[in-house]
C-alpha cells in the first residue's frame, strides 16, 4: 500500500472512532506530515480532546507514546530527566536519566494550560531547539509528533505566553456533538466496547511517516500558491505605524490612520513568520496527499493555523471573528486583481514608467502590502535619480516609514 493511501487510511480509522469534527481530523492528519509536528487541541471539557490526541498518536506511533498530564502536578524530572543517583553516589558522576517523554516518538500533553510554568519552559525549549537540558547536560530529541490539549476556560489555568502557543503549528477547535452525533457516539462506544483508543491500530510505522514527511518536504509548490500564503500572512502582519514595535497598540494606534478600516485595524498583536511556515507545511501536505490545493483550500486551512497566534482588538467569538477577517481578506485579494496591482508591479520591476507608476501609487494608497513593495522600488529609483524624494508615495502621504523598509540600493 502506498504511503498516501496509508495516510488516508489513518484519517479513515480516526474518523471511524471519533464522531463529528471531520475538518479538524483532516487538518490533524495533514499537520503530521512535516518533521517535529506540533498540534494543539482546544475545546471545553468532555468534548474528546484527549481521545482525538490519543487516537492520532496511536495510529502513528503505536505504543511508542508517552502522555504527560498537566493536571497531575507533574515535575520537570518526569518530563525532562533526573539524576541517576547510584552513579552520583558510587562514582561521583552526574548522569542524567532522560525521561520517557523525551525519548518517545509520540508525545502527548494533556491539559497543557494546567502545566506549571517551569515544566512548560522545558517543553518550549524542546519545541524551539529540538533538545532538552537537565543538570548541565543536553540531549538532542529525535523527530516526533507532539500533541497537546487544553481547555483555556478552565479556572485552574496558568497563563502561558503567546510565544509558547505560537510554536504550535495548528490549533484545532472541537465542537460538542449535535443530537444525531450523540446517537452515533453511543453506537461507536458499543461497537468498540467503550474502548475507542485501544481499538485503534497503528496504521503506519514512524519510519513510514518519516518517509512520507520527506516526500511532502520535496513538493515544489507553484509560485502562485506560495504567493497567496505569503500575501495572506503579510496582510495580517503589516502595519504602517509599526504596531509590532509600538508601545501603543490598536485601536489607539489607529487613530487618524489612513488604513483604519483595513484588516490591520482589527489586529492588536500580529502574526509571526511561524504562521507562514505552518501554513506552507499544510499546503504542501494537501498538494502531496490530494494532488491539488487551491486558494479556497488555503483560506480553509488558515482558520486552523492563524487564530491562536494573533490577538484581536475585540474578540467575541474567536473563530467567528477570524472567519469574518478571512472573508474580508478574500475580498481584498479580489480587489487587488480588480486594480491590476500585481500586473502593475510586474511592469515596474522590469523598469520605471510614469503612467504605470501613477496607477501603482493610486493602488498603494489602498493596500499596505503593495505599498511596501512599491516603496522599495521608489527608494531604488530615487537613488538612481529617476524619481525625486518629494514625488514618492511616503512623502505625499506623510507616512513615516520605518528605517528597515528603506533598503540601500546597491547597483549590481
Amino acid at each position, binding site marked *: 500500500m502506498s504511503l498516501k493511501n496509508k495516510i488516508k487510511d489513518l484519517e479513515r480509522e480516526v474518523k471511524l472512532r471519533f464522531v463529528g469534527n471531520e475538518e479538524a481530523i483532516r487538518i490533524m492528519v495533514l499537520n503530521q506530515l512535516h518533521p517535529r509536528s506540533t498540534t494543539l487541541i482546544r475545546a471545553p471539557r468532555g468534548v474528546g480532546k484527549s481521545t482525538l490526541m490519543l487516537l492520532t498518536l496511536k495510529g502513528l506511533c503505536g505504543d511508542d507514546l508517552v502522555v504527560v498530564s498537566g493536571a497531575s502536578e507533574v515535575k520537570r524530572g518526569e518530563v525532562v530527566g533526573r539524576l541517576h543517583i547510584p552513579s552520583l553516589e558510587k562514582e561521583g558522576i552526574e548522569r542524567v536519566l532522560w525521561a520517557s517523554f523525551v525519548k518517545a516518538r509520540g508525545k502527548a500533553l494533556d491539559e497543557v494550560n494546567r502545566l506549571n510554568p517551569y515544566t512548560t519552559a522545558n517543553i518550549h525549549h524542546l519545541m524551539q531547539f529540538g533538545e532538552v537540558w537537565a543538570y548541565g547536560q543536553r540531549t538532542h530529541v529525535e523527530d516526533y509528533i507532539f500533541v497537546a490539549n487544553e481547555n483555556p476556560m478552565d479556572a485552574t489555568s496558568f497563563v502561558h505566553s503567546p510565544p509558547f502557543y505560537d510554536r504550535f503549528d495548528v490549533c484545532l477547535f472541537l465542537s460538542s456533538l449535535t443530537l444525531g452525533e450523540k446517537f452515533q457516539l453511543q453506537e461507536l462506544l458499543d461497537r468498540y466496547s467503550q474502548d475507542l483508543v485501544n481499538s485503534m491500530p497503528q496504521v503506519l510505522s514512524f519510519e513510514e511517516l518519516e518517509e512520507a514527511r520527506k516526500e511532502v518536504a520535496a513538493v515544489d509548490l507553484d509560485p502562485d500558491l506560495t*504567493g497567496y500564503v505569503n500575501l495572506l500572512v503579510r496582510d495580517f502582519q503589516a502595519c504602517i505605524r509599526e504596531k509590532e514595535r509600538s508601545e501603543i497598540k490598536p485601536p489607539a494606534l489607529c487613530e487618524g490612520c489612513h488604513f483604519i478600516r483595513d484588516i490591520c485595524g482589527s489586529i492588536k498583536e500580529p502574526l509571526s513568520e511561524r504562521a507562514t511556515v505552518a501554513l506552507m507545511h499544510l499546503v504542501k501536505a494537501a498538494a502531496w496527499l490530494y494532488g491539488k490545493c487551491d486558494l479556497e483550500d488555503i483560506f480553509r486551512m488558515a482558520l486552523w493555523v492563524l487564530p491562536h497566534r494573533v490577538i484581536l482588538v475585540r474578540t467575541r467569538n474567536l473563530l467567528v471573528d477570524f472567519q469574518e477577517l478571512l472573508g474580508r481578506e478574500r475580498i481584498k485579494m479580489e480587489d487587488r*486583481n480588480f486594480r491590476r496591482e500585481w*500586473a502593475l508591479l510586474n511592469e515596474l*520591476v522590469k523598469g520605471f514608467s510614469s503612467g504605470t507608476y501613477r496607477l501603482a501609487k493610486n493602488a498603494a494608497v489602498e493596500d499596505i502590502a503593495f505599498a511596501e513593495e512599491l516603496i522599495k522600488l521608489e527608494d531604488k529609483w530615487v537613488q538612481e535619480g529617476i524619481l525625486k524624494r518629494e514625488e514618492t508615495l511616503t512623502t505625499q502621504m506623510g507616512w513615516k516609514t520605518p528605517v528597515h523598509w528603506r533598503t540601500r540600493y546597491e547597483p549590481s
Partner: protein
Amino acid sequence: MSSEKFRKFLEIQSRRSPLRISEGKVSWEEKDVMTVSYKPSDFLESVYLGKELQNTVVMDRSVAAMLQHRLTELEKENGRLRKSIKILKIALGGVIVASALILLALL
C-alpha cells in the same frame, strides 16, 4: 525583488489580470463585472416606473410624509376590518347555534 518565485508569482498574476500598455498609457478590460451604481435612485421612480433600486435610495420629505400617512391609514383600516371580522364570526356562530336548536326542536 530578489526572489525568483516572487517574480514568477507576479508574472502569473499579471497573466490572469493583464494590462495593455501603449504609448505610455495603461489600460485593461473588465470582464464579467457587475457594476454597482453608487448614484442614489429615486424611491418613487422605482415604485411607479419599475426602475431598479440602487444601494442608496432618496425621497423628498413630502413623499416620506405621504408614505407615513398612508401607512397610518392602512393600519387603521386593518384594525376596522379585524373588528368587522370578529363581529361577523360571532354572528355566524350565533346563526349556526340557533339553526341547530331549531332543528332539534322540530325533531
